[in-house]
Structure formats: C-alpha cells, structure tokens
C-alpha cells in the first residue's frame, strides 16, 4: 500500500494548562508531508517544535485537531495500536541519542525488531546491515558508553530504521554534537532519504539542516509562520 501523504495534520493544537494560564504550545497547525520528503521544522525554542514532534509521533494526545499517519487518524488508536504505530510506522531520533545503556549497538538496533516479533537470525542480519550502512560495521558489540556522541547518534539512526518505518522523526538530532559531527549526521540522514526513500521530519534550529531539506517549516508561537521550499531558500541565501 502506497500513501501519498505520510503525515497530515489538521488544525492541530496542544494547550497546557498551568493554573489559570493557558500555554498554547501548538495552535492550529496544518501540515502535509509527502512520502519521501525531507522536511525541517525550524523555530526558536518554545515555538512548539518538540510538541509537534510528540504529536506526530503518537507520544502525546492533542487538545484539538487531528494527526494522520499514512491516512489513519492516530487519535483514534488505543494503547496497543499506538504501541504498534510507534514500533512499525515511526522511527525516532533524539537530541540525547537515548540508547539503552546496558545494551550493545547491535542489541539496541535489534530492540524494535523484538517488539514486532522478527525472528532472531533476521534481527541480527538486519541490524548488522543497518549498522554497516551508518558506518559502524566494526562497532557492533560496543555499548553506548564506549561510543562517541556521533557514533551513538548513528546507532540511533540505525535503530530508527530497524522496522522500515513510514517516517523518521528527529528532534534536534544535531543538538548535542559538534559542527563537523553534526554535518556528518545531517548528510547521513539526507543520504538515507535519497537512497532508501525514507521520509524524514526533523525539528531543529540547526541552520546546516536548511541545505538538505526539501521544505522548511518555520514555526513561531505554536503556529506555522511560513513554509519555504529549498529553491526559495537558496535564492535568499
């Protein structure tokens, strides 16, 4: 089954109630992401990037509006179906890598495959393949503590791809990395996007991300300020 739009949000809003104050983290966001697209969500901190990330990723429920992943309204899913969505449809990459510290690189990549019931031999084969693609073929049995930040993020990218998700969500993937390592990670994401056709949505304020994105969504105060395609941006620069 092929879907034209991987992600679609409709009047998406998330309010946090702090006593008598209402914080509108997201306030009516309409966004469509095509299959195979590389979209960056930019904006200052507090603009709602992470909230949007959580909503699209099925990690939190919106106050209002809808999120469709592969044409299914995920607010209608129960806990079990949401777990399945997170395992199968979405790959997550975090600023702080979030690898399981007690597991090796290989085991970390195998973990999402355990949840969906992939047989052991196939898990090992796939995880080895993915780690080789991200350039860590010789670090399979290292634990996160024995890897550098950039290497840990590569493991996280391999893990995000383990179940061939419809979309990879990355929240500030370069936020904890130095300039050069960050650039390598961005290029890796772009390569995976081009070669494997993975749909990628990143929330970031790293300007290096602009060069590789098909579209850039500027978020401010929980609303979309403007959307630029790459051609326009290059002209601007």
């Amino acid at each position: 089954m092929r879907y034209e739009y991987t992600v679609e949000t409709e009047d998406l809003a998330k309010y946090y109630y702090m006593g008598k104050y209402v914080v509108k983290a997201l306030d009516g966001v309409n966004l469509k992401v095509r299959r195979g697209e590389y979209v960056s969500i930019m904006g200052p901190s507090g603009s709602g990037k992470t909230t949007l990330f959580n909503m699209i990723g099925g990690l939190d429920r919106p106050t209002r509006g809808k999120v469709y992943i592969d044409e299914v309204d995920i607010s209608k899913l129960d806990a079990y179906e949401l777990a399945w969505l997170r395992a199968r449809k979405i790959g997550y990459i975090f600023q702080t890598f979030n690898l399981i510290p007690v597991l090796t690189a290989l085991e970390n990549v195998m973990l999402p495959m355990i949840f969906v019931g992939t047989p052991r031999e196939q898990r090992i084969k796939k995880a080895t393949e993915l780690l080789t693609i991200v350039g860590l073929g010789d670090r399979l049995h290292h634990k996160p503590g024995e890897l550098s930040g950039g290497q840990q993020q590569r493991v996280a990218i391999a893990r995000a791809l383990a179940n061939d998700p419809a979309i990879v969500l990355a929240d500030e993937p370069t936020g904890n990395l130095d300039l050069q390592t960050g650039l390598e990670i961005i290029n890796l994401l772009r390569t995976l996007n081009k070669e494997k056709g993975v749909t990628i949505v990143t929330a970031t304020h790293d300007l290096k991300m602009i060069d590789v994105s098909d579209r850039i969504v500027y978020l401010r105060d929980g609303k979309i300020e403007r959307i630029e395609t790459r051609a326009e941006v290059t002209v601007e620069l």
Partner: protein
Amino acid sequence: MSKSEVGTWEIGEIRFPFSEAFRLSLESIRKRFVRAAITTAAVVLGIAFLNSLMMMAAIQSVYTGTTGIQTYQYWLLFISLLVCAVGITNSMLIAVAERYKEIGTLKCLGALDRHVLILFLNESIIMGGIGGILGYAAGLIAAIVYGYITLGGKVADPMSKIVEAMLMPRTIIPIALPTVLALLIVSIVLSIILSMAATLYPAYIGAKLNPAEALRYEV
C-alpha cells in the same frame, strides 16, 4: 498475525519475549550493581532475622521441649519485614525515576505498559531471590552460632542437638519437611513475594508514564 485493522493498516502483534525482558533486567542490575546490592541487603536482613528466629526457637525447643517463640517476636518479625519492604519501595522509586528516559525510549520502540512493568518486576524477583538465599544462609549461621554458645557447657554434644533441631519435621502445606528445608522454601518464596509487592507501586508508576513526559524528564 494481524490483531485488528484500522483504516488501511493491519495492526500486528506486539511482544516482548520473557527471555529478552529477563536479560534486559539482569543487565540493568549489573549496571547498577551497588544500588541493587543495597536493595538486596534489605531483603537479606529481613529474611536472616526470620531464619535466625525460627531456627533459634527450634534449637530451644529441642533442648527444653517448649515451642520457644513468643507472640511479641512475631510482631518484631512482621515489623522487620515491613521495614524491609518500605526500603525496597524507596529504592525502586529512585531506580524508576532514574530511568524515565529509558522507559520513554522503550515506549517509542513499541513497548507496552505491561512490558515496562515486567521489566521492573523481573528485577525485583532476581534481587528478592538472591536476597532470600543469602538471608537464609546468614540466619542459619547466626542460629547455629547462638545454639553452640547457649548449649555449650549445658549438654555434652551441642552440635548434635542443633542438627536434631534442623532436621525436626515441619509441616508446610501439604508435606512435612525437615526444618532447614522448610525454612529455605519459606525464605525464597517470602523474599520474592515481599520484593515483588514492594516493587509493584514504583513499577506501576514507570509503566503508566506518558512517553512524551518520560522523554522530557532530565536526570
């Protein structure tokens, strides 16, 4: 394989085989060995107290022919096990809080609430089981030393009296076993139940965490 259908999706099965969960629990204990050891020590002390009390009473009864345990001692025992449980709960609450991010990550990868629950309960079973065996050994040694000192001088061969007390049959449903064996079984079962019961609440908190909140949490 498919569990249900939503729109155009076929929702498949989500699982976390026990062997994998157990291994992850074991690795987590190894990684935080010192704290796990301290938590286990709480079980060891409680169970050692239980065993020394029962065993000393058995030695006493072989020597004097009385039952040897007073009601207040049962109270003491109950309180000591309660203190031990509270200690475990406290320690597991910290262990869960320390791993909010890990729990959030696991949920992102597809873990269900019950998988997180099982992960922490596994840890409590491992620590409880080890604590039970060590506590049993410590309590037994304490009782033997006690018996040797009190009986020494009063009877010709204190060790034979102690052995007699150890082998004295006790009925634990449905069969009669020598005291040493009965106490071993009681120790292991009780320590595991105690440890699991004390972990239930912290594990439940961890399992119920909303992944977005869990990920936001900074240690």
